Structure formats: structure tokens, C-alpha cells
């Protein structure tokens, strides 16, 4: 534990890290400001419906009618009156045909897609039973604000957390070489075990930084956006929808999520994904002694994975594409649709969770092997 504390203190005494962290927070505040065009509408809807609950029923409609008359109240009222249970007769066949049409050159990928939508049909029936479609969330502006929060803000937080986490890990693993203490520290068997503590320190530091970024950003966001009455509303309400490859579909989630639970789940999975990125950095940092080169190798690994996925899609290698959608970069790319069916970005239910879990396991094994190799190789400084 003492070694762990020493490693953390090395990171804590890195001024550039805190400077960049502050800049990231400033950038996130600017991003929050850029969503101003939806803020008035969201806050106005929240103010009118905050005390009416999330389920749109006669009580909700009566409550809305009793609000002071205004053009926007009338707009919300007409939207609420037009709500129906969209899941009652929702036909998934067009979606199935659309996506299987893309991957039909690979029978296995097509079968996976078919199977995913079969399982989604059960979810649609369940959502109809629970009446999730009739949840208000926060009215007609829901899709824009939901996408702004998860597609812009959470994506930025996750990116910043992952980058800072990876660089922190590389810093710790390259520290002894840079300080010219490697020859002394790594000369003994016990000294070489220090690397394990470094990896452990990096793995705890990365999600901590990410959570700090997420907490401050979300607090600032919630200071300007009124979410007080919406936490209990289902994210599968009919005003929330997702668009993939120009096709619009309801926000089908694989479990019943309310707005609060969904935010917590996204933040939580983001933390695990940050650990995955930190583990990747640990592998590169352990195998490549030069920190700058290991950062370049890591960048190549991440960008190369994304390029390989694009290549598979362009050449019709859909099974290869399906496997590559599990990689961490791919999971990061579709953060705004986590826990939903994700269209062509997913081939099994809960793909983002499975992808993150698999990446954790693979990168964990990779890190263990890299540390083992480091423990046995000759010292080079």
C-alpha cells in the first residue's frame, strides 16, 4: 500500500496533468454552453411537468392543462395528447431486413443479427407491458438533450478520462527510466515487482480521474439544466429515439432504465472502459521502454483497430467486422447508444458491456504476460 501511495504521489505531483485536467473541465463547460439552444425548451418543459410525474395519463394531462396558458404549454399539451403506446404494435421486421441486407454476404453475421432482433422482440413486448412509451422523460425535446448529454458531453468526458488515464499509466511505467533509477530499482527481483504496483496505481488512478471529470462536468450541467423531475422517467419513452445509418427507431434498451439509472450505468461502464484503455497503455508501456514510442504504438493500436473495422465493412468481411465491434475503440464510438440494440454496431444484446468485459479480460491477461516478460528480461536503460 505504501508503494501504491508513492506511485500516486508521483502522478499527483505532475503539474501538466492538473493543468490539462483544468483545461478539460473548461472545455466541457464550453460544450455545456454550446447546448444552450435546447436549454430553454428543456427547462420550460421541466418547470411545467416537474410535479406531474413521468407517466402521461389523465392526471398528467389535467395538470398540464392547469398550467398558465402559453404557446409552449399548448405545444406540450398537443404532444402529450398525441402520445400512444408505440411498442404495442411495433414491427421490427423493417429493421431486421435493413441490417441483414447489409451483412447477408456473411451467413454467420446475418444469423447473429436475426437472433439479436428476436431477443429484442421480447423486450419490445415487455416495454409495451410496462407502458414505458408513455413516459414523458422531458417531452418533445428529449432526443436532442439525451443525445447532447451522452453523444457530446459524456463522449468528451470519456475521451478525456481515457487519454489522461493512458498517459498516467505510461508516465508511471516510464518513470524509472526517465529518472535513471531503473538500473537500481529493477536490479532485484523485488524491485521488478514495483511494476505491478505501478500498473495497479495507474488502474485506480485512471477511473478516479474519469470520475472526477464526470462528477464536475455533470454537476455544472445540472446547475444549468433542470433534471429534478425527470430522474424516474424511462429512457425508452417515445420522445427518446436513436438514429443509426439514417434509420430512426425508439430507444430500445435491454433492461428497464430510468433516466437516473441510465446515467449511472453509462458513467459506470465509462469507468470500466477507462480501465480497459489504461490496461492497453500498461501493455504498451511495459513492452516498449521508450515512453514516447509506447504512446505512438498505443495510438497506432487504437486507430488501427478502428481502420480495420472500416476495412472489414467496406470489403464485406462482416464476421470480422462483427468481432471488431467488441474492441474498446468501437465501444467508445457508440457511447450515445449504450445498452440499446445499436443497429449495425452490435451483433449481440448488451454488446457494449460484453465488449468491455472481454476487453478487460484480454487486456488483463495481456498486462499479466507483459509484466511476466518484464520480470525476466535484461535491464536496458
Amino acid at each position, binding site marked *: 500500500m505504501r508503494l501504491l501511495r508513492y506511485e500516486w504521489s508521483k502522478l499527483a505531483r505532475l*503539474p*501538466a*496533468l492538473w*493543468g490539462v485536467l483544468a483545461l478539460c473541465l473548461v472545455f466541457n463547460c464550453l460544450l455545456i454552453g454550446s447546448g444552450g439552444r435546447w436549454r430553454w425548451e428543456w427547462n420550460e418543459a421541466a418547470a411545467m411537468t416537474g410535479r406531474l410525474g413521468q407517466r402521461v395519463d389523465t392526471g398528467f394531462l389535467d395538470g398540464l392543462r392547469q398550467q398558465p396558458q402559453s404557446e409552449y404549454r399548448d405545444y406540450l399539451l398537443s404532444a402529450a395528447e398525441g402520445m400512444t403506446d408505440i411498442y404495442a404494435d411495433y414491427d421490427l421486421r423493417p429493421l431486421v431486413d435493413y441490417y441483414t441486407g447489409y451483412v447477408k454476404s456473411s451467413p454467420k453475421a446475418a444469423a447473429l443479427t436475426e437472433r439479436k432482433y428476436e431477443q429484442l422482440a421480447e423486450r419490445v413486448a415487455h416495454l409495451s407491458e410496462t407502458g414505458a412509451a408513455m413516459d414523458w422523460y422531458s417531452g418533445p425535446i428529449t432526443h436532442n438533450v439525451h443525445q447532447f448529454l451522452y453523444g457530446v458531453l459524456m463522449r468528451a468526458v470519456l475521451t478525456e478520462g481515457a487519454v489522461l488515464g493512458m498517459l498516467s499509466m505510461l*508516465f508511471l511505467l516510464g518513470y524509472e527510466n526517465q529518472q535513471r533509477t531503473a538500473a537500481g530499482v529493477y536490479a532485484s527481483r523485488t524491485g521488478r515487482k514495483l511494476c505491478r504496483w505501478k500498473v495497479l496505481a495507474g488502474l485506480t488512478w485512471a477511473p478516479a480521474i474519469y470520475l472526477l471529470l464526470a462528477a464536475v462536468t455533470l454537476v455544472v450541467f445540472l446547475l444549468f439544466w433542470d433534471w429534478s423531475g425527470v430522474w424516474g422517467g424511462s429512457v425508452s419513452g417515445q420522445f427518446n429515439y436513436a438514429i443509426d445509418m439514417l434509420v430512426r427507431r425508439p430507444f430500445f434498451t435491454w433492461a428497464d432504465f430510468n433516466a437516473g439509472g441510465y446515467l449511472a450505468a453509462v458513467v459506470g461502464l465509462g469507468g470500466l472502459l477507462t480501465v480497459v484503455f489504461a490496461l492497453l497503455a500498461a501493455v504498451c508501456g511495459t513492452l516498449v521502454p*521508450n515512453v*514516447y*514510442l509506447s504512446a505512438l504504438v498505443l495510438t497506432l493500436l487504437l486507430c488501427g483497430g*478502428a481502420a480495420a473495422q*472500416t476495412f472489414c465493412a467496406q470489403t464485406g468481411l462482416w464476421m470480422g467486422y462483427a468481432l471488431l465491434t467488441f474492441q474498446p475503440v468501437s465501444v467508445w464510438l457508440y457511447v450515445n447508444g449504450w445498452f440499446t440494440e445499436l443497429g449495425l454496431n452490435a451483433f449481440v444484446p448488451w454488446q457494449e458491456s460484453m465488449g468491455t468485459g472481454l476487453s478487460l479480460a484480454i487486456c488483463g491477461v495481456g498486462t499479466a504476460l507483459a509484466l511476466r516478460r518484464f520480470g525476466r528480461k535484461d535491464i536496458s536503460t
Partner: protein
Amino acid sequence: MSLFWQELKKIWHPGIFVGIVLLGLIYYYMFPGFYIEHFSNGPSARAEFDLSVEWVAQYGPTLEPEERAELDSRLAEEVAIFDRQLEGVPEAAAAGITDYASFRTADQTEENARLTWDIRNGTNCYTISAIQQMLERYDDPRDYLRQHDYFESYTAKEQEQMLAVNSWPGSFLSRSVMDSTDYYFKYLAQWTAISVILLLSPTLVRDRLRRTRSLQWSGRRGRRVLHTQLAAGLVSALLLSVVNVTVYAIPFLAQGPLALKDCPLGNSVWAVGTPWFNWTYGQYLAVLTGMVLALGIGIGAVTLFLSRFSNNYVSMLLKAFPPFVTMGGFFATWVVHYAFFFHAAWDGADFFVSKGAEAVCVTVLLIAGAALTGWSCVKQRKLEC
């Protein structure tokens, strides 16, 4: 001079160079490669480009009023070709589509949508549409006074400039070529910024980590060694930018945009925007290239400054992260996006980019870079070893 070459050798470290080349290949495949594969994206844009090239060869870079009448007969020829091509589609006659006029009528409705789609893609339909739109545009030039929001955002002098563009001879510069140029240069500028940051980030950190400062300072050149190091860094930034521009230019020029090099930017017969300057497309390409090179040097200078004040690679990478995002992600693409044209500062912005603002921004970057590197040199003299 030998010190300069030694510094260059240190900067162009084989491992880093290979890493940048591989990243560059991935970047090219993921982003700008699309604009080469789909240069003049879509059949309509392709038809427009082909007509532009053909007419430039026939009439020169501009369309004079006396040449306008000839285009009517060209349109009639294309329509006759279409009618002959239509005879090869038996389903067309069955659906009552026997000539171009009946095709246009059928195209207005959803009925026979599949058939009209097939006809459009199997005939010279896009060429006819392009000629028709171009003639309509030429005969009824744009009326800025009708575009209130856009026009009124500018000062009286700027409005005068916009109106003056209308009096220029009608240029054959194709909109599709301008779009491809715009996207391609945005990616080139972005990659130049990224690659220069990656190349120069470790430059001065390396010496610090190897503790060579005391050795360098006690040498004959003394503390002025930093001048040579900065010069080598700036030359490397320029060199890498030149390499980037050259590598990007080869596939781009192979698509044939230089056929339109003498076409003026303004008052195009196609829907190209309104430029601030009376340049030809060839001159515009040269100006954009110059801007990318200047960007490379400016960003290189800022990177060297950050590298000078970093104790280790991670500290440098952390410091490079903000310029990476701001310069690579935003500034580099913004500054070449329809540069020197009248356009809004960004999508949905209420204010518009003024005359030469892009050049001013790049100049400010160069001045800032020069000031920061100069300050590093001054500070070097006073530092304790």
C-alpha cells in the same frame, strides 16, 4: 552546420518517423481517401465536373454572352441523346415515358419511382439537369439583396464587394470540385497539424532526459545551441508539411481538377460561393497550400516551445493534448474551410468571416510561434544550469 544536421537527425528518429507514416496511412484511409475515391461525389456532381472540363477546353475559363446561345443547342443535343437512350428501356414506353418531357412529368410523382430511378441512372439525365440548372442560373444571376440575413450581416463596403462579384465574367469553376477541394484541404491541414505535433513533441525533452544540457552549454556554442535546435525543429516542421502536401497532391491532381485552374473563383455558372478576391482556382490552390505550410510552421513553433518547457515525455504529451485538439481538431480545419469566401464563422453562427480573416489568423499563429520561440531563447540566457 554539423550541429544543425545532428539536431535534424535526432528529430527524425526512425521509430517516430515510422509511427507517423503508419498513422498517416490510417488517417488517409479513414478520412481524406473518401474524397479521392469519390472526387466529385455522385453522378450529378460528376456530370457538372465533366461539363466544366469540356467547356473550359471549348470556350476558355469563362462563358461569354456570345457563347451562351451555343449551349441551348448543346442542351437540345443531350435531350435527343436521352430520347434515343430511352428507346432501350422497354418498360418506359409501357409506363407512358416516351421522351424527356414525359420523363420529367413522371419523375414528379411517386408512381413508377423505381423505373424513373433506373432511367435517371442509365441515361444522360444528370447531364441534362446540370445544363438546365446552369443555364437558369446564368440567365438569372443571384440576387444578394434577396438573401437578407446573409447580405445584411456585412458592412456597406463588403456588400459592394459582393455585388461587384456579380459583374465578373461567368466562370466554369465547378461546385463539386470546390467541395472536394475544401474537404480534402481540411483533412490535409488537420493531418499536417497532427503530424508536426507528433514529430516535434519529443525534440527538446529528449535532451533534458539525457541530461545533455550541461554538456551543450559548456560547448563552444554555449547556450545558443537552442537557436540551432529550434531552427532544426522549424525546418523539420516545414519539411514534414511539404512532404504531406506533396503526398496529398499526387492523388488529388490525378483526378484532373487542374483542368479548371484558370477559372475565376467568383460568379461561377454553378453554385459556388462568393469569394473576397478575384483569384483563379489555380491561384486559390496555391494560396491554400501556402496556408497549410504556414500552419505547419506555426504549430511547429508552438510545439517546440511546449517541448522546451517539459521535463518528460508524458508531461509533453499532456501539454500537446490541448494544441492537438484545438489546432488539429478545430483551428486547422476552420482556417481552410472555404477560406477567403463569404461564409458564416461556423454552422448556425450569426456573424460572418471578414475579408482575409483566415490569413490574419495564420499570421497571428506565426507571430505567436515566433514570439514563444524567441522568448525561449531569451529565457535560456538567464537559466541556471
